[in-house]
Structure formats: structure tokens, C-alpha cells
């Protein structure tokens, strides 16, 4: 394993990086926690299920897989295998199908994005999940859940998910979009043409199915009533649904990931900078080639211009979708859960007094101390804690102190891991 580069994540960034590393002559092991390649964006359907991906999506993924196939045996793929972390000696723990302790030559982390979801009363109820979570099931099953689906929050993913539900014959009840992305069509013209084509497809499908897209509308609370979910929204709207998918943007899925002095570690794609699929492909390629050059002592390739283009496009999208939703945090009822892991509430936060520091938030408040390590509450707790002292653009650093392992690991997995590091120098 000492010659092998370990790539974590078999999505766009991970597999395009693996291809570049292998092309340079390096053996590559790609692991992914899922049972199929594709990551979140290109999640593949179950065996025998027809893909719901668009033609453009299918072509992009086919290109990535052709690149992998062309490298033959230099790329090994281990599915159902999770990255547990790397210790100070450069030993990496893998659990699941390939349960091993290995010492790779370098580590490329391509774990994609995590979704940001703003806390609201009722967001912990069963039947309420992230848009990405629901979308994963649509892609794997090519089937929409039974019952009424409501999509709420902010961002282009809501339109994509809504259009997929229409395609599967179950249009959502409505899309509640906190921003007003269609209010500035002239600014939107500066988006790349591929973004326009994608948006037009989604909007046409949603319009034909008469799905209400309520912009400038916030979902403020959810409650369980008579076996269903009742959503309250601004403007006095009330909608009854069976499933609610929430989404307030994406962030890098990089919390608790290691740096290691004894091992080159790089982050690629959304895991490095959340810029979406087009950038992930370019970043994976460029990052893979750069890592290969570094390991082999060759000159580093020039940076990919596509990344700058996508960064500009995503910044414009963020402007078009900008809204005041985060200001609503201050008005949340005291019993609203902020930390999902330990059910810590707004009142628990307020009990810490004015302007609590990160350490106090963790040790006294127990925020970001649960098994998710603050992935879902850290940003909001930081914002709420800074609310007494708001600036024009209050920075919202995570408050957590995430550490190894990246996720809870069973002791049994630690004990059962085949140790392939023995006899190798530390």
C-alpha cells in the first residue's frame, strides 16, 4: 500500500482525480461509503432501475467512467468502505467492506458537499429531511415517495429536485424559495449558458405541472398533526404535506478531516470549495494531476481556468438567491432545537449569557459536541451567539473542535481491521 494513493469519494472529483493519478503511473485505491459510484450528483440507480438523469448528466458521467476504465488495473475501487481518519503516523483506518489499516503514499479527500439547513421549529420531525437526502432516493429508486411532498429553503437544488419529482409523476405541492432568484433577470443573464439551459429545463417542467414556486417565502415552522406535517410559511400560508425536504445551500463536507504532517493530504471538488458539479470535475482533474506531479517530482501543471469561471458563476448565483433568512434565527421560539444530536435549544444557548465564546458553547452548552461534530449546528450556533454584536457580514466560523475519527467508529471495526502497516516504517 505504500505506493498507493488513497482517494476518498467516488464522485466527480474523486474519480477524475484517480484517473489523472493513474495516468501518471501511480496505483490508486478509491473508496466510497455508498454501494455504487457517482457520489451525490451522479448517484447511480439500483441494478435494474432506469436512470432519471438528464442526457447531459449521463454524458458527463459516462466520460468520467470511460477515463477510469482506460486506466485498467491501476485504479482499484472499494465500495461500501468508509474513511475513518488518519493518525499522526499517516496510518489510515478504513471500515466497512474493506476494513483495513493502511499507510498510503498520499491522501486525496473528495467527500463532496454537505447541505446547510437552517433550524426551524419541527425540523427534527420524521418525514423532514434534506433535499439531497430525498434526491438520493429518487436517483436510486427512480420512484417518488408516496404522499404529498413540499420543498422549502433556498437554492437551485430545490428546482432540480422539484423537476425530478415531476418527471416521476409526483409534482411537489409547492417550492417555497426564500430568495427571489427571478427578480433580476438582467443580472442572471451573466450566468454561463449551461446554467440557463439547466434552469430552463427545470422551470419548464415545473410550470407544465403547475407547481407553485413561491419566492420570497420562508418556511417558518413545521408541526406534526393527524399523521401529516403542517408547514407554516410567511404570508400566512399553511401547507399540509407528508414529506418535507429542506435545503439552504451547500458547504464543503470538510469538517473533521485531517491534516497530517507525514502524509501529503489534498482536498478536491466540493470538499475543498463548494462550487458544484462542473467545478468538481475540473478540480478533480487538476488536483489529481497536481498531486501526481508533486509525488513524482515533476513540474506542476497550470491551474484550470474552468475553476475561476465556476467560482464567478456560483458567486453570481449566490447573489441572485440572497435573502434575509438567517436574520430569522433571532426570532426562533426558545424551545427550537438547534443541535440535533443532543437536542440543545435556543433557550439552552441563551442561558449561556451574552456573547458566549466557542469553548463555552461547547463545554457548557454542549453545542457541536454530538456525533455529527457540529456539521449541522455549528454555523447557526455561531451566528446566534454573534447576534448581540452583529456586523454587516458577521463571519460564521464553525464552533466545533472536530477530531479523529471523522465519524463514530465501532470498537469492533478497530479490532477487526486488517493491519497492513506492519513492517512499514513510521
Amino acid at each position, binding site marked *: 500500500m505504500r505506493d498507493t494513493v488513497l482517494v476518498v469519494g467516488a464522485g466527480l472529483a474523486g474519480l477524475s482525480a484517480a484517473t489523472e493519478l493513474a495516468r501518471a503511473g501511480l496505483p490508486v485505491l478509491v473508496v466510497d461509503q455508498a454501494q455504487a459510484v457517482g457520489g451525490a450528483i451522479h448517484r447511480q440507480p439500483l441494478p435494474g432501475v432506469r436512470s432519471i438523469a438528464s442526457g447531459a448528466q449521463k454524458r458527463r458521467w459516462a466520460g468520467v467512467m470511460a477515463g477510469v476504465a482506460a486506466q485498467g488495473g491501476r485504479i482499484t475501487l472499494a465500495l461500501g468502505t468508509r474513511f475513518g481518519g488518519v493518525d499522526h503516523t499517516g496510518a489510515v483506518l478504513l471500515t466497512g467492506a474493506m476494513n483495513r489499516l493502511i499507510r498510503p503514499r498520499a491522501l486525496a479527500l473528495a467527500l463532496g458537499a454537505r447541505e446547510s439547513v437552517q433550524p426551524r421549529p419541527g425540523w427534527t420531525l420524521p418525514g423532514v*429531511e434534506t433535499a439531497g437526502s430525498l434526491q*438520493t432516493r429518487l436517483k436510486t429508486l427512480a420512484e417518488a*415517495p408516496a404522499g404529498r411532498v413540499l420543498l422549502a429553503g433556498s437554492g437551485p437544488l430545490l428546482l432540480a429536485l422539484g423537476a425530478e419529482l415531476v418527471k416521476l409523476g409526483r409534482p411537489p405541492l409547492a417550492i417555497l424559495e426564500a430568495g427571489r432568484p427571478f427578480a433580476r433577470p438582467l443580472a442572471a443573464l451573466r450566468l454561463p449558458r449551461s446554467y440557463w439551459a439547466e434552469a430552463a429545463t427545470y422551470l419548464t417542467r415545473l410550470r407544465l405541472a403547475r407547481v407553485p414556486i413561491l419566492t420570497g417565502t420562508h418556511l417558518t415552522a413545521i408541526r406534526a398533526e393527524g399523521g401529516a406535517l403542517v408547514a407554516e410559511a410567511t404570508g400566512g400560508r399553511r401547507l399540509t404535506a407528508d414529506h418535507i425536504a429542506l435545503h439552504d445551500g451547500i458547504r464543503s463536507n470538510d469538517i473533521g478531516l485531517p491534516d497530517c504532517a507525514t502524509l501529503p493530504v489534498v482536498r478536491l471538488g466540493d470538499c475543498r470549495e463548494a462550487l458544484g458539479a462542473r467545478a468538481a470535475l475540473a478540480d478533480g482533474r487538476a488536483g489529481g494531476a497536481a498531486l501526481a506531479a508533486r509525488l513524482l517530482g515533476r513540474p506542476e501543471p497550470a491551474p484550470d481556468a474552468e475553476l475561476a469561471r465556476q467560482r464567478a458563476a456560483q458567486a453570481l448565483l449566490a447573489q441572485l438567491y440572497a435573502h434575509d433568512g438567517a436574520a430569522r434565527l433571532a426570532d426562533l421560539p426558545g424551545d427550537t432545537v438547534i443541535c440535533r444530536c443532543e*437536542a440543545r435549544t435556543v433557550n439552552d444557548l441563551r442561558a449561556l449569557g451574552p456573547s458566549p465564546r466557542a469553548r463555552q458553547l461547547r463545554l457548557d452548552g454542549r453545542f457541536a459536541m454530538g456525533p455529527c461534530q457540529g456539521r449541522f449546528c455549528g454555523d447557526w450556533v455561531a451566528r446566534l451567539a454573534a447576534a448581540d454584536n452583529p456586523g454587516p457580514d458577521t463571519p460564521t466560523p464553525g464552533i466545533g473542535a472536530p477530531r479523529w475519527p471523522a465519524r463514530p467508529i465501532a470498537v469492533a471495526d478497530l479490532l477487526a481491521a486488517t493491519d497492513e502497516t506492519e513492517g512499514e516504517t513510521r
Partner: protein
Amino acid sequence: MTTGTIFWAGQPVPFRVGETVASALMRAGIAAFGTAPTGQARAVFCGIGLCQGCLIRAEGRITEACLLPARDGLRLSPEIGGDDA
């Protein structure tokens, strides 16, 4: 499309090959996977193993339902108060 059966708190639930336990349970109309130590309901939220919200008990081990592949005869129960033996 091949299928099999898993058991949730003793009840048979069909699954498709390649499907996760969470996906199979949700298709069967089971959205609440028991109760967490906090008293909150266990349920799928992020769907990608990050939030730890869908923890269940599978063959004596607590694990994320959203990542666990279903396999024929697998016996599952809520994290607390269940008996998957």
C-alpha cells in the same frame, strides 16, 4: 428487480437489491426509527451518514440506517428498547 426481506422490530419489510435499510423502511412507510437518547425521534435527515440521526440497531451494532445495505434476513430494531436478537 430482485428483492428480499429485512425485519424491522420483527416485522418483514421488502427491499430491492442495492438498497439501503433506510430506503427500504421509508418505502414501507416507516419514517420514525425509534427514539434517540435525547427523546427525539430517530429519522433520516441528511441521508449520507453525516448527521447520525438515523441510527438503528443491526445485529447488535448501532449504525446509520442510511448507509447500511439491506440484505436478506437482516434483523433490525430501534437503538433503544429494541431487541434484534
